[in-house]
């Protein structure tokens, strides 16, 4: 089950996705204790942000939807919260957001002293004005610009997180690779979507629309990972609707080296990491694979 991602050793390929339970060091520790191979913190902007008003996270029949709006305690809060991360027994990935390239750089420099194993840059949130797709950060040009600026300022591996809503995700991935990204995270939430409460005659999310995650996202996420795998050589962290070991295997066959898990925590609880890992092992053994590397990308043959 051991997995190498940009030179970082993970004891297994499951990674806590950003924005889910990544608000504190103790929660990260708990997720690691429940089997995660690596964990990502909730995205950090330079200044603290309150995010959108409640309701911010809902679940509909087919999946989850959120418009948290990047609430976070900013660099100052992160410096208090994420001290001595090397005490934790798995690599911790930072997640850094900003509006312009220089904002990303400011945060990366602000977090310099902390023990993050890598830095993830989401350019793909579909529901926060000024960020992600609403700010056009998902074009190949902007992706190149932001990636380049960040890569210049850090020696740590940089993961660029892409949107499933982008038309040519392969092109965006290529832009990130060209600018020096070490890995691609595919994908962020989809849509956005909207759920209207017909009795209230109002969208349920206070921001009206939100990014779709969980099972409804899975087939689109798998296709994105497949497309990205055809476009770049750097490894992929595949996220979107991974709930079971079989989902994880599917992501790997599409081209993922590691798999992100977020909404799955709602469906299966916090020990989903341990469960998914044991389901992967079981499947891998039954099907005569020697290691996970053999699975990566086999659906392309």
């Amino acid at each position: 089950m051991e997995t190498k991602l940009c030179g970082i050793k993970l004891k297994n390929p499951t990674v806590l996705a950003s924005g889910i339970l990544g608000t504190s060091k103790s929660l990260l520790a708990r997720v690691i204790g429940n089997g995660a191979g690596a964990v990502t913190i909730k995205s950090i902007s330079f200044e603290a942000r309150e995010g959108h008003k409640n309701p911010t996270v809902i679940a509909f029949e087919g999946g989850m939807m959120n418009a948290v709006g990047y609430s976070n305690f900013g660099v100052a809060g992160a410096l208090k919260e994420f001290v001595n991360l090397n005490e934790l027994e798995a690599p911790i990935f930072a997640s850094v957001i900003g509006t312009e390239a220089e904002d990303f750089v400011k945060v990366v420099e602000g977090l310099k002293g902390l023990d993050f194993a890598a830095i993830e840059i989401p350019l793909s949130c579909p529901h926060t004005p000024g960020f992600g797709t609403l700010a056009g950060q998902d074009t190949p040009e902007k992706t190149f610009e932001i990636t380049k600026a960040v890569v210049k300022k850090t020696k740590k591996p940089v993961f660029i997180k892409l949107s499933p809503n982008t038309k040519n995700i392969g092109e965006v991935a290529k832009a990130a690779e060209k600018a020096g990204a070490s890995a691609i995270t595919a994908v962020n939430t989809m849509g956005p979507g909207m759920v209207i409460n017909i009795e209230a005659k109002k969208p349920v999310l206070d921001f009206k629309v939100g990014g779709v995650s969980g099972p409804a996202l899975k087939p689109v996420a798998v296709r994105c990972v497949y497309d990205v795998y055809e476009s770049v050589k750097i490894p992929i962290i595949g996220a979107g609707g991974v709930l079971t070991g079989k989902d994880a295997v599917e992501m790997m066959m599409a081209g993922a080296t590691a798999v992100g898990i977020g909404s799955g925590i709602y469906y299966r609880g916090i020990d989903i990491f341990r469960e998914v890992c044991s389901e992967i092992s079981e499947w891998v053994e039954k099907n005569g694979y020697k290691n996970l590397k053999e699975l990566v990308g086999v659906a392309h043959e």
Partner: protein
Amino acid sequence: MSELPEIVKIIKITQENPCVKTFFFDKRIQAKPGQFVMAWIPGLDEKPFSLSYVGKETGITVEEKGKFTKRLFQMKEGDKIGIRGPYGNSFGLKANACVVAGGCGIAPLSTLIENLKNPFVILGARSKDRLIFEKRFPNAKITTDDGSFGEKGFVTDVLKNVLRDRKSEVIYTCGPEVMMKKVFEICESHKIGCQASLERYMKCGFGVCGQCEVNGFRVCKEGPVFSSESLREMKGFGGFARLKSGERVSVSEYIQWRCA
């Protein structure tokens, strides 16, 4: 599986004291003592409230504090709000119990009391006109800070006296966190189990966003009720809480912010 508010009608409103009302809904919710719901006022906000009535009647008991509760207080019978849940764990039922409620903290404890056999109930408030449910629980020992009703003093004073005379196996408590912290310390010194219901700012309510975190515990999922084993580990208990941005502040600072 889905977590979407269902619109319910307010069918009855009772004024418990000048600042507290109970809102009853036209929907039965299967819930255990201590569980809460997320109440949604479309276009405004969504907040957690303990169920203070479960069974024949379903209700929440709310103190007017900030924007949200103000709007709620303007509502009349027949008006509608959204509800999702119930969420969270519940009080574990034990014999020989003592219940210590401070202010609005009686809300989650009410249905617990109705499920206990002969509990000793201590009901405290700042003053007579701040008491809640003193008629619902006529056997409760009442305290007021100013002595305007019942015994003058803190609930914790009464608790200490009670523990001298009465064998208790568990203390259930809810109220201001500094009060609960004192109750817990009393329990510890008496080697009695404690179950306290904590309050933190919540977003999802079902354990994914991490907003309500205290020392790795999700108050919405592993809580809101925590027993002594967990309380001992929780440095944040009586210590810190998170604002909406996730920023960690002292509980008292949090309470001020939450009521704004």
